[in-house]
Structures are given as structure tokens and as C-alpha cells.
């Protein structure tokens, strides 16, 4: 017999079937289109944002992520479950589409059938396996949500509707197949190519042809209605993510990671700065809420949330959506709350893991800008004092600016004002210039450069804070004045290359300062030293060291520098006992987002939590690459009362000892 089947068997291929069917399709799709047109009005309440550059590449990225579920499956459970379920569903969709193409187009108009022979065999078995896999993994997702109840996972009526609807659609699909096969295929070789349907057919055969035909017809129409219902419900339930999340991949932020949007502070007509209501966020910020599937991966990784602060990145994203739809005039500061807004350390764990390309951090910073620039508010007095200190002395520590280069005096390092002919400008940063513990790191770095024959200059008292903590806290005005001064100074000296030992300075100079046309190339000291090591200019003795390594947020997630520091540690003879949360899953030390200036008052101390993670590895040394991390760990080690068990050190110190 022919390996094929009669499409529309029993249901009829005439107008009686096709007209209502396509009418329902038109209505369902119409509902979706209409709903999204209305939604577009909500999105457009936000400011414009250009996200259609490199369109081809963006669409490619969308296909990669949507079809191949790349980001979704990054977290195996439930990512892989969703992946398999989705692929099953997707394959069924393709299958149905092929059927429609043949039945209502190629066969109807040209008499051409392709669902025959070997192709049909493959088609048939693929769809059966796809359907089965879909049911099984949808079931697994159901069990996870309703029986295992993972902490922090909100389950709403929405989820029940989705699970219910999709399960019944899948089951009815098999019932249709089974009832058909029970009449037309039992005992034929074709049946073997639909194994699930075959089993079902065998169990239904006893009904007899008349009953089977009735069941088939009714279920067919029921299935059609359910599917049309499913389509129509897309805009009104979490099903929307099929469209919104996929589209969000197209409009994702491709900019340098962690680079914030600059505000035009010269604009004389601007009346507000920062986001006080959704109208001052971008359309993408509102759209992100629709793209969110409440998967809570961001929340799970947020250092604030997991230490009992009220900040949940997921909630922030969704509250913005709620307000945009229901109460667009609402004040975002009151809606989100101050404790939530100030708790963020901009560590980017949320954004890095988000499978929907949502941008959490910039929303929080935009509302912080409103708090600072429009209300003059800060998380606490310590932060306001640090801001004022920076205005007066160019550093948040409030120490006299004239002493900024004093740490280098005994090393014979000259300032650019004294000697501008240098190989490299070392942008020292506030902590390495003024804080005793971090001055040791700066000195180590100089020793390493000298050993490698690199001529280093510093700005000394001309250097001002890079402005990063101020910017992340929302003080865009102070940041811009610092940035413009630093850029003018550095460009003025004709500097071609800058190296920093602080990842915050590095990130800011390398990305944010380009808005002010900084010309020099900027490199992190870890990458810089690794290159010197590889080229042989820098020679290090290998002296054994058991340690664990902390990937700082700003070198790690923001700049994907994970390997260079590790190879440096290994070259120094270190064996790294990795923490569970490492590389892109690294856990913030708590000082980012400008919080180095603030006091931590709510919940558990983030730095102590991280120190405890390091203690668990049993290593006696905690190596890091950032002055904030080093400061936080020195404090955290005391907080955890582990001064004799764990010693925080910077990579530069380790290397300098081994010259």
C-alpha cells in the first residue's frame, strides 16, 4: 500500500470544513494582531530606542535562540525540559503546516502530493515522537511547578490554563490519530510508522467504526477550537512569550556589555532626568515585561534577593509592565520602592542568565537617576557624603586630592605632568591611590611592569575618580563632569594605551568614556600581564599556592575575562579550587552599583556570604582582581571570623611576590 494518508479523512475536504476552519484561523489571528496593535500603544508610551541596526544579524540571533533554545537550555533543569517540549511542539507545528500546504494548496490546486512514500514515513514517525516527547516533558514541567514547587516560582491561574490547554491539545491530537488509525490503518505496515497512534488505535478498536468516526470527527473539531483558542489567547496569557520573547531576541542589547545610556545634560528643554514614570523609560523597558516568562533565573542569582533584600529583578521588570498597562502616570520610585532600587549592585547576573534578553540593570539605574537628579536622594547619608567628597576632592573617600599620587613616590614612578613619554598610562583609581590595603596592589603592579621593562606613568593628583560608582548610583551629572575632565586630560597627553587594575575603571574607560571620545586603547591588567608573560617579557617563578579564585562581576560577566587571570594564577604556581558559583555564575562581592559608598543595612551581608562560599573550598587564599572585591573580602573575612582561615589577595600581589 501507499505510505500516505488521506488528509481531512472523515471530516471532509469541502467548504463545510474549510470555510469555518479558515474563518476561525482568520478570527484567531485577527485577535492576536489586534491585541498586539493595542499593546504597541502601551509600549510606545516609552521613549524611542534604536534597535534595528545589524538587522540581519539580529534576526539570525533570534532564530538561533528561539529555534535552538540556546539561552533557555543553558540551565539544564528545567531548560532542557522546555527545550524538548518546545521542539516537539514546533515539529508538530511544522507537520501541521506541511499538511495544510499539501491539502489546501499543492494538492487542491496542482494535484501534487509530497506526504507520500519515504518522506511520509519519516514525517509520520517524527511527529509521533515529537508529540510523545512534548507530552512527557510538558508533564515534567507540570510536576516541577505543581509538586516540587521551586522556591520563588510564582504559580498563577495563567499557568494552569496554559498547562491544561496544551496538554489537552496534545492528547486530543493523539486521539484523532488513534481513532483514524483504528479505522484505516490497523493491520497495515503504515501503522508502524506512527507507533504512539498505533498503540492508541489498538486500545480504541473495540469501539467499532461508527463510534470511532464520531469520536474522530468531534475530537477533530474540538482540537481545532482548542488550537484556535490557544492562538487567540497568546496576547492575553503567558503564551505571549512565543511572540514577545522571540521578538525580544531581535531587539536585544548588543551594545558593549554594561555600557549605560548617556543622558544629554546640555539639553536646555529637558525637564526631567531619569525615569520617574514609564514614559521616561524606553519602549523596550515596557516590552521586556511582556517578554518575561517569570522563570525567576534572575531572581535566583541576584545577590540582593538571596540575602533577604527586597530586590527581585524579575519583580522590577514585571511591575514596570503592570504600571505601563494599568497606571502609566504612577511614580516608579513609589511603585518599586527605595529599598529595592538601592539594593542593586549592577552585577549583571540577572541579565547574563535571562533567556528572554531582558535588560534589568538599566531600568534600575534609570529610576536611580530620577531619585538622585530630580529628588537629590541617596540610599543613605554615607553615600551623599561620598558624592560631595568626590565633588570636592575627586574621590569618594574624601581624602585630599593633592596626595593622590603619593603612594608612588618611593617607587620612582613619574606623573605625566613630569614626564609624558610613557609606554602605558596606569589609571590607578581611587582605592589603589588612597586605601592602604589596595596601595599594595598598585605597588605590585608597578613592580611587575618594571620587571617587564614597561615604562609606566600615572596621572597622580590630576587623576579624578572615573565616576563609575556615581554613575551606577544614578548621579549622571557628577559622572559626566568627571568623565569629561579625565578624557580631556588623557587625550591632551596624547596617551595611546591605558591599563587599569580596577575592573570598574576598566569597564568605564573602555566603554562609557567613548561617548566623550577617549582615544586610547584600554586594557585590564590581567590581560595585559598575561600577554607580557606569554611574550616572555615578564618572568614569574612558580611557587605552589592552594587558592580559590573569585571572578569579579566587572571583569567577568561584564567583560568575559575568565581565562587570563586563571592562567596567571597557574603560571604563578597556583592550583585553583573553584567555587561552585564561578565564571559567569560568580556571586557578587556587594560593592558594585555604587554600593561601595553605601552601608548595607538589610538582610544578610553579601560579602560574608561570598567569603563563606570561598571557605567551603578549603583553600587558604581567596584571590581576586578588583579593589572593591579585595576590600569587601577583607571585611567579610572579619565578619565571618575566619581571619586565620582565609587570606584575601589580589593577583598582582601573587605575581609580584614571584618575580
Amino acid at each position: 500500500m501507499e505510505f500516505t494518508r488521506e488528509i481531512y479523512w472523515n471530516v471532509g475536504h469541502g467548504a463545510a470544513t474549510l470555510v469555518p476552519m479558515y474563518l476561525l484561523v482568520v478570527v484567531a489571528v485577527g485577535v492576536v494582531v489586534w491585541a498586539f496593535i493595542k499593546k504597541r500603544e502601551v509600549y510606545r508610551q516609552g521613549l524611542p530606542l534604536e534597535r534595528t541596526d545589524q538587522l540581519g544579524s539580529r534576526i539570525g540571533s533570534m532564530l538561533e535562540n528561539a529555534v535552538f533554545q540556546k539561552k533557555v537550555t543553558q540551565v539544564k533543569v528545567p531548560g532542557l525540559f522546555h527545550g524538548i517540549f518546545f521542539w516537539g511542539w514546533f515539529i508538530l507545528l511544522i507537520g501541521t503546516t506541511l499538511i495544510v500546504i499539501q491539502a489546501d494548496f499543492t494538492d487542491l490546486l496542482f494535484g501534487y502530493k509530497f506526504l507520500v512514500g519515504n518522506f511520509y514515513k519519516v514525517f509520520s514517525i517524527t511527529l509521533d515522537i515529537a508529540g510523545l516527547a512534548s507530552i512527557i516533558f510538558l508533564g515534567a514541567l507540570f510536576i516541577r511547578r505543581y509538586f516540587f514547587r521551586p522556591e520563588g516560582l510564582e504559580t498563577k491561574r495563567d499557568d494552569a490554563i496554559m498547562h491544561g490547554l496544551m496538554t489537552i491539545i496534545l492528547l486530543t491530537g493523539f486521539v484523532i490519530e488513534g481513532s483514524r488509525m483504528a479505522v484505516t490503518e490497523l493491520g497495515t505496515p503504515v501503522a508502524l510508522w506512527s507507533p504512539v497512534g498505533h498503540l492508541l488505535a489498538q486500545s480504541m478498536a473495540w469501539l467499532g467504526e461508527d463510534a470511532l468516526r464520531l469520536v474522530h470527527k468531534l475530537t477533530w473539531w474540538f482540537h481545532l477550537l482548542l488550537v484556535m483558542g490557544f492562538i487567540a489567547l497568546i496576547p492575553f496569557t503567558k503564551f505571549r512569550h512565543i511572540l514577545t520573547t522571540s521578538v525580544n531576541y531581535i531587539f536585544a542589547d548588543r551594545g558593549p556589555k554594561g555600557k549605560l545610556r548617556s543622558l544629554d545634560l546640555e539639553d536646555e528643554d529637558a525637564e526631567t532626568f531619569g525615569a520617574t514614570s514609564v514614559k521616561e523609560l524606553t519602549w523596550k523597558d515596557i516590552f521586556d515585561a511582556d517578554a518575561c516568562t517569570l522563570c525567576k533565573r534572575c531572581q535566583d542569582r541576584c545577590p540582593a534577593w538571596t540575602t533577604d533584600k527586597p530586590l527581585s529583578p524579575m519583580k522590577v521588570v514585571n511591575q514596570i509592565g503592570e504600571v505601563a498597562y494599568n497606571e502609566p502616570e504612577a511614580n516608579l520610585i513609589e511603585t518599586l520602592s527605595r529599598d529595592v532600587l538601592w539594593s542593586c549592585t549592577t552585577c549583571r547576573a540577572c541579565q547574563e542568565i535571562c533567556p528572554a534578553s531582558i535588560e534589568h540593570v538599566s531600568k534600575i539605574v534609570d529610576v536611580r537617576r530620577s531619585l538622585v537628579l530630580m529628588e537629590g536622594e541617596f540610599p543613605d547619608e554615607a553615600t551623599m557624603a561620598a558624592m560631595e567628597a568626590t565633588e570636592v576632592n575627586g574621590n569618594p573617600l574624601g581624602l585630599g586630592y593633592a596626595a593622590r599620587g603619593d603612594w608612588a613616590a618611593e617607587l620612582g614612578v613619574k606623573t605625566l605632568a613630569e614626564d609624558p613619554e610613557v609606554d602605558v598610562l596606569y589609571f590607578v583609581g581611587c582605592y589603589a591611590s588612597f586605601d592602604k590595603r589596595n596601595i599594595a596592589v598598585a605597588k605590585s603592579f608597578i613592580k611587575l611592569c618594571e620587571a617587564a621593562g614597561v615604562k609606566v606613568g600615572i596621572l597622580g593628583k590630576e587623576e579624578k575618580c572615573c565616576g563609575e560608582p556615581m554613575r551606577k548610583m544614578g548621579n549622571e551629572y557628577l559622572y559626566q563632569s568627571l568623565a569629561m575632565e579625565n578624557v580631556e586630560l588623557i587625550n591632551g597627553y596624547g596617551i595611546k594605551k591605558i591599563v587599569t587594575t580596577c575592573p570598574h575603571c576598566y569597564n568605564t574607560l573602555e566603554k562609557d568614556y567613548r561617548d566623550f571620545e577617549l582615544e586610547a586603547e584600554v586594557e585590564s591588567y590581567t590581560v595585559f600581564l598575561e600577554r607580557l608573560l606569554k611574550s616572555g617579557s615578564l618572568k614569574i617563578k612558580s611557587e605552589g599556592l592552594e587558592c580559590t579564585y573569585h571572578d569579579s562581576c566587572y571583569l567577568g560577566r561584564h567583560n568575559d575575562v575568565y581565562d587570563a587571570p586563571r592562567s596567571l594564577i597557574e603560571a604563578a604556581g597556583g592550583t585553583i579550587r573553584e567555587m561552585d558559583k564561578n565564571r559567569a555564575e560568580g556571586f557578587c562581592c556587594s560593592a558594585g552599583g555604587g554600593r561601595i559608598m553605601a552601608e548595607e543595612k538589610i538582610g544578610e551581608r553579601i560579602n560574608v556570604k561570598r567569603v563563606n562560599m570561598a571557605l567551603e573550598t578549603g583553600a587558604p587564599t581567596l584571590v581576586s582582581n578588583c579593589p572593591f572585591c579585595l576590600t569587601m573580602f577583607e571585611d567579610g573575612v572579619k565578619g565571618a571570623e575566619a581571619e586565620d582561615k582565609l587570606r584575601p589577595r589580589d593577583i598582582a600581589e601573587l605575581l609580584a611576590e614571584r618575580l
Partner: protein
Amino acid sequence: MNILVCIKQVPDMESKFKVAASGTWYDNQDLAWRMNEYDEYAVEQAVRLKEQVKDAELTVLCIGSDKVKETMKKALAMGCDRGAHIDDGESWAKEPFEIAGIIAEYAKDKNFDVIFTGMQSQDRGSGQVGVLVAEMLDLPCVSTIVDFAFDGGAIKAKRELEGGVKANVTVQTPALVTCQLGLNTPRYPTLPNIMKAKKKPMESIAVADVLKVDARMETAAMYFPEKKGGGLVLEGEAGDLADKLIAILKDKTSVLK
């Protein structure tokens, strides 16, 4: 209502000071400049008074070179309406009586209802200017206030005395008050206000036009005090220092017996 607040630009106290070549004042190299801390409280209170009364014009006055305009802008950004800059490149060389004389000369025909000043400056710290201005203008004056309330022509203030005690006083306007630290929490200027400040009127007056008094004293010399001998300086590792100190305390005091 007409309000005046007088401010001074001083060096940040974290700066490393050096004596100038003249030997009579500190060198102004390598100094970071800021509004006198006491004056920040004065500006904040003046702005709050203006906000309360609503129909009020608040002037900020400062004496010094062009450099002080930076600091005046901050006062404008906090909420002052206009600036009166007394242009004087040698303001640091003047003594309190001259400074007060300049201010009084400026203010005498302007009918200020309330004049705010800081209680003293962080550099010279004589604490005289505010009270002298009041005397020159024959205004009642309350100094060292840590609380201020205005109600229909009367100021109710609290003076800070020794030992944490406060004195409640009432005075009718026009009057002058000098502000102590902790009077309020000075606001951080919002960006729209910083931008508006750039456009607010700033009057520049040559100091010669308003200096009508003579100095009554002068600085003969400025110098670093000698370190009193006998003070032992200990440096080293925290643990060793602790041991050393304990030994000293056991030896020199009865505390650790």
C-alpha cells in the same frame, strides 16, 4: 520677604596645608575648595524659610575672587534666587571686622528680614562675622542655632550650649542668626536646579565699593605648632602594636592591673 545668606569658600580640611611664602597665611596650592560647612546649614535653612514663606527673595553673598562663584552656584542650586559676589582677590587677608563691614555695607539699604550666616568658618574660625554684622546693622542676633522656626514675624530658635543643653530663644524679625552644625540636613542640589542656577542673576560688586571700615587687627604670622615632646609614636603590625600598648598601659596607668 527679603532673605540674605552669607557664605564663605574655604579649603577642604583634609587638604595638606602649607604656610605661604609670606608667612602670614596658608598657601593656596594643592587645596580643594568647598563651601564652609557651617554655611551649608545656613543656606539650607534660608532656602527652607523661603519655601515656607513662598513670597520671598533669597540672596546669597560671598566675598572672594572669581573662584568663589563655583561655591555660590551650589548655593543657587540649593535654592537661592540671586547671587551677590563681592569681588575681592585678597579676601583671605581681611579680618572679621572688615568682612562684617563689607557685608553690612552691602545689606544696609536692602531691608533684609532675616540674615543667615554660618556660626564660624572652618579655616579662620573666629565666629565673629555674623554677630558683628548684626551689631553694625543694629539687628537682634541669635548665634549657634541648632533649631529654627519662623512664625508670623517671630523666629523661635534653639541655641546649642555646652553639655548638650539647649536654650530656647525668640526674636522678632528683622534679625540675624548664625548656624551651628546639625541645624538641618543640607539638601543635595537636583539637576534641574543646578541648571537653573546657571541662569540666575549674579551681581558682581568691587570690594572697594563696599569696604568702608578699617581693619582692627592683623595676622603677624601663621605656623605649624611644635609637636609637644613626650608623645610616643608607635608603628608596625596591629598585633605587635597591641602588645606594646598593653605593656605601656600596665606601666604608666592603673587601668590594666
